[in-house]
C-alpha cells in the first residue's frame, strides 16, 4: 500500500508495511513503524528544501523556488496513507509533496537544475515537478488549478473500480493553500466531488498567507473547514504542525473516500517559515519575526523527535543517523544533478504532442 519506491538507493528507509498501516488505521493509533515513517518523510523534506534553497540563492539552479519548510507534517501525515496508485495534485510549493510521495532526490535536484535526467527531463522545473508513475500529477504554477484535476483522477478511480468490480477505490488528494479557496476552480471541484461522491480528500494547507497577503486580509473566515458545509461534505481541522494529528485526520478521511463515502475537506493549520520565494524567513514586511518564532516553537520535526524519544521509539542516535543518511543522499544527488546532461536544444519541440502512427 505504501509508496515504497525502490528508488531510494542506499538510504535506510523506515517506511512501514501495508499491514502496519492498516492495523494502525483501524486503531487510529500510530504504530512505531508509522511514527518512524512520518519522521523520515519530514526529515527528507526539510533537508531537501534547505539545500535546494541554498542552490537557488547561490545561483546554481535557475529560476524561483517556493519552499515547503515548516509545513512538512502535512505532506508526510497524508502521504503515509497513499500508495503509488493514489494520486495527488500539488501547488507552487510542491517539492514537499513529491518528496513525501517517495520522490527520488537525484531526479528532483536534476529537475531543479533543468537537466535531462530530471523527473520532467528539465521541461518543468520546480513549479511543475511531477512523477505521474507514482500518482504525483504535478506541482502547479496556477493557484487552485489542481483540485479540478484531482476530481478528474478520482472520477477515473471510481470508473475503473466499477469496471473491475472492486468496492475499494484509489483516492485522489489535491493539496492547496488558504488562498486557493478563494478561486472559483476550487469551488467547482469541491462541488463536483461532493455531488458524485468521488474518492477525493481536499487537503488545505492553511499557512496563513496567500502569497504575501495575510489570511485575515484575503478572506472573512479563519477556518477553511467551514467551507465544507457549503458543499455538503465533512470539514475537519487538524494541527498541521503535528504529523500524527495530520495522520489521524487524513487517515479517517482517506478511508471514507476509499470505501465510497465521498470527499472530505481536511484543513491543516500550518506556517511557512520562509518567504513566498526563497529561503529568507525574517525581516519580512508582512509579518513579524516574533510570529515566526512562536510557530517555530512547535516545529513539526522537533516536536515529533521529542515524541519518538519519549515513547522510546527511536534514540537520539538513531534520529541523528536518519538525518545523516538523508544528507548523504542529498550530497550525492546534487552531484548527480550537476553532472547530468542538459537537454539537447534539438529536442525543444519533443513532447508538445503525443506522437501517433499517422504523425
Amino acid at each position: 500500500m505504501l509508496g515504497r519506491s525502490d528508488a531510494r538507493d542506499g538510504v535506510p528507509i523506515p517506511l512501514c508495511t501495508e499491514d502496519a498501516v492498516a492495523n494502525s488505521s483501524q486503531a487510529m493509533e500510530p504504530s512505531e513503524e508509522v511514527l518512524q515513517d512520518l519522521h523520515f518523510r519530514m526529515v527528507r523534506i526539510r533537508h531537501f528544501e534547505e539545500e535546494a534553497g541554498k542552490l537557488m540563492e547561490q545561483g546554481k539552479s535557475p529560476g524561483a523556488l517556493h519552499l515547503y519548510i515548516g509545513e512538512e507534517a502535512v505532506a508526510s501525515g497524508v502521504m503515509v496513507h497513499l500508495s503509488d496508485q493514489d494520486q495527488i495534485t500539488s501547488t507552487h510549493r510542491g517539492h514537499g509533496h513529491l518528496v513525501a510521495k517517495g520522490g527520488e532526490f537525484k531526479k528532483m535536484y536534476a529537475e531543479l537544475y533543468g537537466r535531462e535526467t530530471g523527473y520532467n527531463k528539465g521541461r518543468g522545473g520546480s513549479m511543475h515537478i511531477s512523477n505521474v508513475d507514482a500518482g504525483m500529477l504535478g506541482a502547479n504554477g496556477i493557484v487552485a488549478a489542481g483540485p479540478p484535476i484531482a476530481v478528474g483522477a478520482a472520477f477515473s478511480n471510481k470508473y475503473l473500480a466499477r469496471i473491475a468490480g472492486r468496492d475499494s477505490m484509489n483516492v485522489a488528494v489535491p493539496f492547496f493553500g488558504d488562498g486557493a479557496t478563494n478561486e472559483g476552480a476550487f469551488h467547482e471541484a469541491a462541488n463536483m466531488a461532493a455531488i458524485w461522491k468521488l474518492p477525493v480528500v481536499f487537503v488545505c494547507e492553511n499557512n496563513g498567507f496567500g502569497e504575501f497577503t495575510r489570511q485575515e486580509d484575503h478572506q472573512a473566515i479563519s477556518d477553511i473547514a467551514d467551507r465544507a458545509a457549503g458543499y455538503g461534505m465533512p470539514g475537519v481541522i487538524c494541527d498541521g504542525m503535528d504529523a500524527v494529528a495530520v495522520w489521524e485526520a487524513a487517515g479517517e478521511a482517506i478511508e471514507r473516500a476509499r470505501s465510497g463515502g465521498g470527499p472530505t475537506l481536511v484543513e491543516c493549520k500550518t506556517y511557512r517559515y520562509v518567504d513566498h520565494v526563497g529561503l529568507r524567513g525574517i525581516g519580512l514586511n508582512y509579518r513579524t519575526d516574533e510570529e515566526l518564532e512562536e510557530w517555530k516553537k512547535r516545529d513539526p520535526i522537533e516536536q515529533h523527535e521529542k515524541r519518538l524519544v519519549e515513547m522510546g521509539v527511536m534514540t537520539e542516535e538513531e534520529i541523528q543517523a536518519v538525518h545523516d543518511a538523508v544528507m548523504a543522499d542529498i550530497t550525492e544527488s546534487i552531484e548527480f544533478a550537476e553532472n547530468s546532461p542538459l537537454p539537447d536544444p534539438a529536442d525543444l519541440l519533443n513532447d508538445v504532442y503525443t506522437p501517433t502512427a499517422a504523425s
Partner: protein
Amino acid sequence: MTAAEAPAGRQLVYTLAITEGVRQALQEEPLAFMAGEDVAGAGSVFGIYRGLLDEFGPDRVIDTPISESGIIGLAVGAGATGLKPIVDIMFMDFIGECMDEIVNQLAKMRYMFGGKATLPVTVLTMSGAGMNLAAQHSQSLEAWLCHTPGLKVVMPATAYDVKGAIITAAREPNPVFVVMCKGLMALPGEVPEEPYDLPIGKAVVRREGDGLTIVAHGRMIHEATKAADILEGEGVSAEVIDPLWLQPLDTDTIIDSVSKTHNALVVHEAVRFGGVGAEIAAQIAELAFDHLDAPVGRVAAPFSPVPFSPVLEQTYVPNAERIAAEARSILGLG
C-alpha cells in the same frame, strides 16, 4: 463537399451526424465517457446528444454542474489517469470560464512533465453567429485555441466531417477541440453508417479552380462556395479550400493552390484582427510570394462584439457577396 454536391448516399443532418459520432466513439472505447452541461437528460441544446444517456447509462453519459473549469479539469485528471474523456463546452463563448484548465493544464501537461503524461481528451463546442444570440453566444474564438501549443483544432462544416472529426478526436492521444458550427445544425449531407476518421491536418479542396484560391473554414466554407458560383458566372474560376484542421494547418495544400492560381483570399467568421486568417495570409506571403499577382485579401468580421439586432448581425457576418466583391478587387475586376 457541399450538400449540393453530395452523392445520393445515406443522408444525415449535421445534428444527427454529431450524435452518431459520439455514439460510435463511446461504443468502440469502453474507457470513453461523455460529460458536460445538460448532455445527458436533455441531450444538450439542439438535441445533439439525444439518446446517448439511454444507450450508455449515467456512468458514461454525465450531466455536470454548470462548471466549465470543473469540466475541463475533469477531462485533464481523468485523461491523465487512463480514461478517454469526451467533454462538451456548450457554446464556445464559455471557454473564458475554463481557459486556465485549457491553456495551462490540458495543453501543457504533457510537455511540462517531459512527455510522461498523455491527454487523450476530446472537447466538443459550438461556435458562430447568425442566430441572434448576441455577443456572448455567437463568437468564433478558434484563434485562441490555435495559438496554444499542445492543442489540435478541427472545425467541421459538413455532416460527414463533423462525425469524422468527433471519432478522430476520440481516437487521438492528444487534446482535440472539435469546434462545431451552430448555424449548420440542419445541414444534410452524406454520412456513412460505419465509424470513420479524418486525416489529421489535411485540408479538403471543396471546389477546383485556377484563377483564385479562397481559403475558408467553418460555416464560411458554404459562403465561399456560393461566392465561387457567383464568380463563375462572371468568368472567374475560384478554387475553394477548407483547411478543416486549423491546428495543425495544412500549409502545403494552400501553397500548392496559390502557386497555381496566383491569387489568394482568406475568409473566416471570426474577427479579422489576429484571426486564423492572418496566420494563413502570412504563410502565403512567406511561402508563395513569388507566385502572387496581388496582395492576399481577407474577409472576416469587423473588430466588434457580435451585435444582437438582426440587421446589425447580418452586416457583421461575412457572406458570399462580400467574398465575391473582395475577389473582384484582388483580381482588378472591381
